[in-house]
């Protein structure tokens, strides 16, 4: 049942506890068009968060990090768009994508109220948590569920990118202290 799985992924993003995802059974498998949509949405969310940071961030390191996020996630999403076109897949909106978008817009509103060093800290902390959650979802659900080999391989590259960003965000967070 896809809805239950979506709730699990949303909860995982919220609590950044990928372990929750492991409760989902094989029957919860999202389809390739849904996976493509979730992966693309996850990228767009991080680009929007970075664009907000580029306007509001104070620290030079945080700004540079946000620039890296825009650059990398735009590159991944461009590849994703090219791939779905090639495979003739139409990304399909779904509960997970909707839950992710809802949480992201709430977070944007929350961060919008902050400024200066408080914003920088909150943005970077959220980047660590967000990348961690997406990594968990990619590893335990999206990659194993993908049936097309090229989609799977793009998700694997996406996972390495997200893991890299998580570590990068951790470095930036450590330097803010």
């Amino acid at each position, binding site marked *: 049942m896809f809805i239950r799985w979506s709730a699990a992924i949303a909860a995982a993003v919220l609590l950044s506890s990928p372990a929750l995802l492991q409760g989902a059974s094989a029957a919860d498998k999202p389809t390739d068009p849904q996976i493509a949509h979730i992966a693309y949405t996850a990228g767009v969310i991080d680009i929007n968060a970075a664009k907000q940071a580029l306007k509001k961030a104070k620290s030079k390191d945080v700004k540079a990090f946000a620039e890296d996020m825009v650059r990398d996630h735009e590159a991944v999403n461009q590849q994703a768009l090219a791939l779905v076109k090639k495979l003739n897949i139409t990304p399909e909106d779904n509960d997970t994508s909707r839950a992710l978008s809802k949480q992201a817009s709430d977070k944007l509103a929350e961060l919008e109220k902050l400024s200066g060093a408080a914003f920088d800290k909150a943005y970077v902390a959220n980047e660590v948590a967000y990348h961690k959650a997406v990594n968990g979802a990619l590893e335990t659900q999206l990659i194993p569920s993908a049936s097309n080999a090229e989609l799977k391989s793009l998700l694997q590259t996406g996972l390495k990118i997200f893991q890299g960003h998580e*570590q990068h965000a951790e470095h930036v967070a450590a330097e803010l202290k």
Partner: protein
Amino acid sequence: MNPGRLPSIALAVVLLSVVVPARAATIEITMENLVISPAEMSAKVGDTIEWINKDVFAHTATAKNGDFDVNLPPKKSATFVLKKPGMVDYYCRYHPNMKASLKVEP
């Protein structure tokens, strides 16, 4: 000095000047799908390392000890000539999960 030796000294000088620079090699290291390969590489002082970025993402080759910090735009390569012997661990500043090391022999 035996005049007969002069040509052979000249020859030796010519050979030496050819041989010495030829010893410095260019070593290619690839970055593809966020993996540096080979991850461990031996080289000598004077060798050139050429990193080839096959990804659509920008990477860097950044030495932990500060010896080098090479930028690698997407689909581009860049080089660095090794100046000091020693073990150098390096990583990508944008994706610190990309790690590798160079063993630089004197």
